[in-house]
């Protein structure tokens, strides 16, 4: 599963990436996850990602992100606020598994 995580500058999402990776190792789920800033989304979309997750603090730009991803057939979803913390790894992983189905 290849997941792209979009936040404002790519700083805070690095923390969430770590939490999700730790949870994935625990549950034995193979996952590649990368955090980027909002401006980089357009360039990254063509690189074979399965899912795009959007940090809650940039959810007001969801429509713009979805428009950018429109041609790629990739789901773009907002992470629930409770998932966006170092303790939220399991929430995000569950969301990913549901989206992957």
């Amino acid at each position, binding site marked *: 599963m290849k997941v792209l995580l979009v936040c*404002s500058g790519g*700083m805070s999402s690095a923390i969430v990436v770590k939490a999700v990776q730790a949870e994935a190792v625990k549950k034995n789920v193979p996952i590649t996850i990368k955090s980027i800033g909002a401006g980089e989304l357009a360039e990254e979309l063509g690189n074979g990602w399965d899912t795009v997750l959007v940090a*809650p603090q940039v*959810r*007001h730009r969801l429509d713009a992100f979805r428009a950018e991803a429109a041609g790629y057939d990739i789901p773009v979803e907002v992470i629930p*606020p409770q998932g*966006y*913390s170092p*303790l939220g790894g399991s929430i995000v992983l569950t969301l990913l598994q549901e989206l992957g189905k």
Partner: protein
Amino acid sequence: MDKIFRLLDKYLIPTMTKLSEQRHLQAIRDGIISTIPLIIVGSFFLIIAFPPVPALALAVKPYAAKVLLPFRLTMGLMALYACHSIGYYLARSYKLDGIAGGILALVAFLLTTVPLTVAGQGLVLSMENLGGGGMFVAIIMAIFAVEVLRFAKEHRLIIKLPEGVPDSVARSFEALIPAAIVIPTVWAVRDLLGFDIQHFVTELFQPLVLAGNSLGGILVPIVIITLLWGTGIHGDSVVGTVARPIWLVLLNQNIAAAAAGQPIPNIAPEPFFQWFVWIGGSGATIGLVLLMLISRSAYLRSVGRVTLLPGICNINEPVIFGAPVMLNPLLVIPFVLGPVTCGIVTFLAMSWGWVTKPFILVPWTLPAPIGAYLATGGDWRAIVLVFFNIAVVTLLYYPFFRAYERKLLREEAGQQIQEEVK
């Protein structure tokens, strides 16, 4: 409180979102942000040229002019760099060639200045208006140039090259007619009609810059940013879109005064907010994190532990979404009032001359006391002020934190009983 959140959701967020999504403002933001590495590295040469230790300063003095050169050619030409990037991003947003947009923006901007003939030096371009002071001119000329480019493209005012010409060559010709419109237009206005665009625009934006430096001018962004974060929206990036050009002009005036050895004029460039208000991140959440570390609630304690390190580096999404502060009527109150208080305290301390006004841009992930020390050119009183502000926000968070903790403790006790029953 719920009603307030609903009102914010209905009015503040859509308005601010629209503003931050606005194409030109977005290009301005991205363009200016792309110059920040130059500003940060360039400013370091200013610290080296004027080190905070007197003995060191004396030793460096003979070389100061030389050490300042990288600073002068980065910070001193900031509008030039920003102009090109703004033109680039705006063109890209229209799906036009970015480089063409950047180059047209540059030429439009440079044409607003008039080179002087200096004996023995040939033609000399004054750097006076190419630094932060020329920022608004750079922005307006970049927008003008790219809009001409777009107009030409939409009305098919392009020179068609025969099939088989490489794409890159063909693209570079697309800017030919726009350039033939932009260059004579600016030249005619500036040189034939003798209309000083630089002077006019600078005067036009002067009230905005003055307002940005007043007490009201610091409280408005603080309140809007914290209210947006209170609903879980990235307030800084939204408000920064509008405010950053003003903050940069203020910063540039400060840094120019510092380099000239004059007293620093402005209180409120961005480092003011970064180091003295957003301690631990927006909302000055470091106070909340410290309280959570010693909380009786197991949940808050664990949030406190994992958010301490990011918090010291001013990253606080984990606190905002983890505690959570977002949509939490108890914690949002000090989340707004804490930074407001810090802003007022710092504003007063600086206007009374107790603490040096900030004039250096340092990376925002440094711990606040270090960042404040560097941003003020090495004023130890800045460190004292940061710790004072931390104490103030911790006290402000305390009663609300206790109330929230009691609520969680009741819930945690309830869970335990349930588990025991099982």
